[in-house]
């Protein structure tokens, strides 16, 4: 019962379907992809009564214009890109109804850079290797493996009705800043760096450069010096891994990272801080802070609890 839901009037800068990623195939070289800000996607889904891992639209910086072709309940979460429905400001972090003929539009990015749009019942998309996430480079997942284009028609997977007015408690709505503290666990190759480099890394400000995308954030700041070489024998790279090539400028590996890589990594961003990083724009300033694994996993469980409590109430 796939029905026409949205017509794409303007595609926006980069609007792709993402779920929680294509896990289980990394050992074969298949990139995980998935929502850059997994927290916001999960909340968007739960607010409209979907499973938390359903695919939604990831909107980047300049959002799309979508014409509603069928009454539906949707939610918009993540960065505030000034969403509007029929010219009126649309709520965020709250389920609401849109009616056939209305326009969903976006304006100035006010806070954060990625919004997530979920629809009750989900979008009608095929699964590729167990996931609906778009991975642009290999042209798989989502809508024919690509970003939205003008005139695309997006289909609903099922019943688009749900309860409206469901929202995330305001205490739990994240704030996205232009200067962020990002917590890391050092390693695995901290021994490849000079002691000064580790000190520099943990005490300096790094700016996110415009050469940043879903694959990785290239940073600019004080150079990090290796003892001998920047190269390692290729190995798996985790989400949030911070690799440092010979030029000494760190790159944080994000959702579309390759599965393996051959550069030394000074640290890994903890999972709880990835969504905040995902919402940071080029020009934002990052300071890194070392934490213990215990602390990081406590923060992980705290974040997970917000999602699972909502999940128990709604789904």
């Amino acid at each position, binding site marked *: 019962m796939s029905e026409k839901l949205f017509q794409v009037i303007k595609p926006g800068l980069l609007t792709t379907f993402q779920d929680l990623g294509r896990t289980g195939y990394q050992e074969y070289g298949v990139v995980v992809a998935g929502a850059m800000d997994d927290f916001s996607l999960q909340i968007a889904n739960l607010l409209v009564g979907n499973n938390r891992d359903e695919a939604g639209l990831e909107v980047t910086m300049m959002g799309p214009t979508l014409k509603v072709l069928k009454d539906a309940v949707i939610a918009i979460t993540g960065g505030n890109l000034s969403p509007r429905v029929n010219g009126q400001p649309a709520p965020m972090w709250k389920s609401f109804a849109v009616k056939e003929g209305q326009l969903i539009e976006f304006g100035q990015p006010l806070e954060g850079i990625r919004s997530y749009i979920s629809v009750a019942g989900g979008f009608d998309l095929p699964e590729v290797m167990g996931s609906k996430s778009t991975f642009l480079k290999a042209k798989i997942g989502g809508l024919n493996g690509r970003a939205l284009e003008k005139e695309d028609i997006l289909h609903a997977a099922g019943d688009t009705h749900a309860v409206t007015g469901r929202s995330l408690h305001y205490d739990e709505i994240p704030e996205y800043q232009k200067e962020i503290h990002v917590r890391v666990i050092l*390693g695995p190759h901290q021994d490849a760096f000079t002691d000064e480099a580790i000190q520099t890394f943990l005490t300096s400000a790094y700016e996110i450069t415009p050469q940043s995308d879903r694959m990785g954030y290239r940073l600019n700041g004080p150079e990090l010096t290796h003892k001998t070489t920047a190269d390692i*024998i290729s190995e798996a790279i985790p989400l949030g891994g911070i690799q440092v090539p010979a030029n000494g400028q760190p790159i944080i590996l994000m959702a579309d990272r390759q599965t393996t890589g051959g550069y030394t990594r000074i640290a890994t961003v903890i999972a709880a801080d990835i969504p905040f990083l995902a919402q940071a724009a080029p020009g934002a300033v990052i300071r890194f802070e070392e934490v213990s694994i215990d602390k990081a*996993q406590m923060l992980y469980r705290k974040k997970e609890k917000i999602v699972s409590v909502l999940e128990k109430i709604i789904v």
Partner: protein
Amino acid sequence: MKLTYHPLGDTGIQLVFGQTISAETNQEIRMFAELLKQEQIEGIIEWVPAYTTLSIFYRPDKIRYQALLEQLERLYENIQGGVADAASLVYEIPTYYGGETGPDLNFVADHNRLSADEVIRIHSSQDYLIYMMGFVPGFPYLGGMPEEIATPRRSDPRPKIAAGSVGIAGSQTGVYPLETPGGWQIIGQTPVRLYDPESEQPILLASGHYLRFVPISKKEYDDIAEAVRLGEYKINSSKK
């Protein structure tokens, strides 16, 4: 031997099995991965074997770092006594060498002062160990190519290399699973699809197994390509 490991943030752990690339280290990693498969430890999402490491990704809300580490150390003790190895397979990759789809065959021959036939003979007479998969979906990192046919990468990389292209870069050989730009010397092409996202088995190869190139004619290439298109082709494999 004690297990060497490093945390990969709060959702991963990397086990280190050696410092250099060797078939023995690869074998040990493979055995460990096999144990992980059998054990089905709650909270583990997946693992990625590489040349000298095995990286495991997990959910800290299901299992914490210390608890996971204890389980991994226990498994590591198990493989120290040596466990029965799951048999490695040799996958046969039918390859049409030279011609339009292997434009650099003669360059590789000239570079090594060999005839084109000798390059084909040498390249197809090895069983190459698949050390790891990566770079792009389904790409096998192969070890064991004879130095006699080693050839530097092209100075001008091609913007497009067709899926199935078989190439040489330095002392490595490999097969391109999908169309990408690349600087490898392309000596042939296989009609077999190493990567087919729509298929039930999207990726044909896996690390720890072997790959052998089998020379075929243009006619055989076309026949196999047709069978692949119809979904009727089955790759030959045998126990190592």
